């Protein structure tokens, strides 16, 4: 690339891409700084967006400034001052705010000593429990990740207007609930961090197995979630679960290259070409898990899931996988984070360690409890176990049941193929 972007007015498209690149790196800093100054999330986000619009107008004509991040923050600050000025007539106190801010408007873009704290506060606000899950996801991607509304809409295959609505509503909710721009107090820290990590994992999973639509993988979304998780782990380095989540994502993403064929058909774990797994990602996953362990606070739900994923990633084949260890890890996971999904996965691990008969009893108990009624997962696993026990007709019925419940077109095709194979077996 030539350095035209910094020296002379570059062509329009290149300048827009340069704006997007700077925005991606700096947006969280800009919003967080404005949020600290204004104490108003809605306003901070709006001013930051206005600065972005101004950059898109100016940079293509005047060239990209040397310090784009500082330019964006300063511009957003000036917009904030203007907004407060307009409000002066309405409310006295804005006069003082605007004056104070103006005195330091030309100071560096953001305070490097405070920016980490500010970004962490921003993360906690965007993932606040007063917001719906969809709102947390949209807001986090927009204000922390620096994605545009259009990019978020494309990633989740929803109309742009829907994402816009979610964001507007979320900002109103934060205002109505008077959510403070603060890192949570000690007594609620763990729970609030759980909400943050949960949002990131949700984004990752949407990239990992798209819950609807034609494509199984949306790797961009997975990578974005991983980037945000690494960011958060650096902001709270003493929290084992933040590193555990990074490890889990790295271990899972390591298999992305082998998870679908060239035409997008999913490949089952047993059939994946393990030489295509990303061993750099596996190494990073192990490093992240080691950092989690180094905190000396034990493994949480993400750390345990990461350890399970690691067992798969380091095994040469399904047969050579340490299934007994996976069963143990699922038992531990089931105790600290009990859920029907964990139980179902434990059953799969037991079927590999001890055989399908024991596992089928576990799955039947789960079914009898009424759990997992609406997803395709339970009948899919049950079909698998029945097929391995040679009960082809029953297996076929389960696979067809699973296919009927499956929202992803690619996965459904696999289930239908299994149903067909079960009959011929």
């Amino acid at each position, binding site marked *: *690339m030539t350095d035209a*972007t*910094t020296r002379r007015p570059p062509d329009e498209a*290149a300048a827009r*891409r*340069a704006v*997007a*690149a*700077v925005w*991606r*790196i700096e947006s969280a800093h800009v919003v967080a700084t404005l949020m600290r100054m204004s104490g108003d999330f809605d306003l901070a986000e709006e001013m930051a967006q206005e600065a972005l619009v101004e950059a898109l107008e100016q940079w293509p004509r005047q060239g990209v400034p040397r310090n*784009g991040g500082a330019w964006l923050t300063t511009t957003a600050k000036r917009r904030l001052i203007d907004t407060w000025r307009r409000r002066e007539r309405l409310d006295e106190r804005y006069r003082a705010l605007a004056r104070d801010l103006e005195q330091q408007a030309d100071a560096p873009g953001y305070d490097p000593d405070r920016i*980490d704290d500010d970004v962490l506060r921003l993360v906690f606000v965007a993932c606040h429990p007063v917001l719906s899950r969809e709102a947390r996801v949209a807001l986090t991607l927009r204000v922390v990740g620096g994605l545009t509304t259009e990019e978020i809409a494309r990633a989740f295959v929803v109309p742009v207007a829907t994402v816009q609505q979610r964001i507007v509503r979320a900002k109103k909710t934060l205002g109505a609930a008077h959510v403070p721009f603060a890192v949570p107090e000690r007594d609620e820290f763990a729970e609030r961090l759980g909400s943050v990590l949960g949002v990131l994992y949700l984004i990752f999973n949407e990239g990992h197995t798209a819950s609807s639509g034609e494509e199984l993988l949306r790797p*961009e979304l997975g*990578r*974005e979630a*991983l*980037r*945000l*998780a*690494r*960011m958060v782990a*650096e*902001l709270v380095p003493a929290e084992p679960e933040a590193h555990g989540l990074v490890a889990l994502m790295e271990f899972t993403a390591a298999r992305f*290259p082998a998870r679908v064929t*060239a035409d997008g058909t999913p490949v089952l774990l047993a059939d994946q070409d*393990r*030489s*295509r*797994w*990303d*061993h*750099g990602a*596996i*190494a*990073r996953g192990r490093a992240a898990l080691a950092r989690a362990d180094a905190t000396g606070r034990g493994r949480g739900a993400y750390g345990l899931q990461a350890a399970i994923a690691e067992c798969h990633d380091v095994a040469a084949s399904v047969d050579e996988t340490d299934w007994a260890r996976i069963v143990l890890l699922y038992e531990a996971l089931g105790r600290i984070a009990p859920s029907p999904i964990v139980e179902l996965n434990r059953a799969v691990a037991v079927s590999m360690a001890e055989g399908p008969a024991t596992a089928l009893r576990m799955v039947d108990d789960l079914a009898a409890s009424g759990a997992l009624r609406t997803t395709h997962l339970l009948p899919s696993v049950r079909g698998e176990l029945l097929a391995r026990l040679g009960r082809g007709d029953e297996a076929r019925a389960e696979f067809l049941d699973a296919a009927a419940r499956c929202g992803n077109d690619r996965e459904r095709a696999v289930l239908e193929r299994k149903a067909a194979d079960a009959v011929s077996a």
Partner: protein
Amino acid sequence: MKYMLIMRADERAVEAYQDMPFDEVIARMGAYNEQLMKAGVMVGGEGLSEADEGFVVDFDGEEPLVTDGPYGEVKELFNGFWILEVSSKEEAAEWAKRCPLGPGSKLEVRRVTGPEDFPADNEWIQKEEGWREELGTK
């Protein structure tokens, strides 16, 4: 997509570094690395020791020729690299511009190839994947 930022320095840069306190060099690079970590884009990187500790294998002649020390006529020496996972070429450029280097230094920025760049059915490509797996360098 991954990009490699390759640090190249000529004599001017080497001399400038010799004049600078080592602690300061380390601190500035450390701060840059920390920025990359905190942005979640750093996936790897290494620094290289003095070129005269290394050697060159030259393939000009019939037999590969091993010579000690730096590259003779080459004016710029490689002395380290980063690998960044970013969303665009422009983002890689933005990070590269922030690197604390001075006159005489260059960053060469290259996209790291992935399996998608090569025909998957080639026997040698498949073998290479296997080696990378064994070596843990993939």
